């Protein structure tokens, strides 16, 4: 039962996440936090932050970890399988047809029309994280940390792993 749920939770984002791994993040959040209640928004944030700080594809790191928490090693395998297999099989199976129609406007359009939806989903996740942080840290700290990390990440192009490490150190120091 739990394995079936894990499968579904990652199969849907895997098969609908047009635009690479990051596009499937809000879809995974929808399943993991809203539908199955396996994690709170904050826990999901931790996983996402760490996933971002670690190397490698983000979608599989999420799937492997959440699967492991909910269903052990087999759960981890199921989560990974559901994320990877459907889209890969589709790609291998359709390669011949795809090569023939790769310039067809409709095929190209799929990922285009899905992008605004993904933008909205990630946008709402952003708002969710801001309000989460505001209720635990207060407005002033939230705004300050956001402003500093925006500066570091986007203006100074500091690596995200470094910025996350910095935030963790700051949290540890102020928490003692």
């Amino acid at each position, binding site marked *: 039962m739990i394995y079936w749920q894990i499968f579904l939770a990652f199969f849907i984002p895997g098969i609908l996440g047009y635009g690479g791994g990051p596009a499937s993040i809000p879809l995974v959040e929808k399943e993991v936090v809203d539908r199955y209640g396996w994690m709170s928004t904050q826990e999901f944030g931790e996983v996402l932050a760490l996933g971002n700080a670690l190397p490698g594809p983000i979608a599989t790191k999420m799937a492997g970890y959440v699967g492991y928490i909910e269903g052990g090693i087999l759960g981890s395998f199921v989560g990974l399988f559901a994320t990877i297999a459907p889209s890969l099989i589709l790609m291998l199976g359709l390669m011949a047809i795809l090569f023939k129609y790769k310039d067809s406007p409709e095929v190209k359009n799929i990922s285009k029309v899905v*992008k605004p939806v993904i933008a909205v989903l990630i946008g709402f996740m952003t708002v969710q994280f801001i309000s989460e942080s505001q209720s*635990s840290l207060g407005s002033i700290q939230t705004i300050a940390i956001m402003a500093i990390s925006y500066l570091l990440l986007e203006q100074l192009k500091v690596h995200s792993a470094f910025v996350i490490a910095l935030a963790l150190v700051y949290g540890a120091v102020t928490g*003692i």
Partner: protein
Amino acid sequence: MAFFRTGMLGFGGGPAVIPLLQKEVVERYQWMNDDEFGDTIALSNTMPGPIATKLAGYIGYKVGGVWGLLTALAASVIPTVLLMVLLLGVLQRYKDVPWVQNMSQTVVPVVAVMLGVLAWNFVQQSQKALGWKIAIFLIVISVLLLEVIGLHPAILIAILIAVVLIPFIKRVVSK
């Protein structure tokens, strides 16, 4: 080896892996030339799901059949998942220590900024691909359907894909 290295060095999610992969696949091992690699990227972009694993699976399959596919996938996925489980496991164990709790709170606004930037990237990409009018129209519609009415995003995405693909399927079938 090619996929282990790119998996371990590709910080910032799947798409960050692409230039690294190009270096390994095209320049180092010469499994493909630049054109083939470009075509493969373009095609995997039109398919759903994570890009890094689609590329690894496809290139692995081309080079070494089913075993090549499994090797490439394992190399790009397993090391990073193991790291993640280990690190988060440690974090979970000390969850109730106040300063650890504080650590996980201060990281939330940073994630919010990253997501905000990512969302804006997607807005810009849609604007480039569709123009402002259609992009904003689709964004407004999605906000209404997803957040006001509470429609599941999977349904909305599936409908959009269907609408785009119907004329294509009709044309292919009638040929």
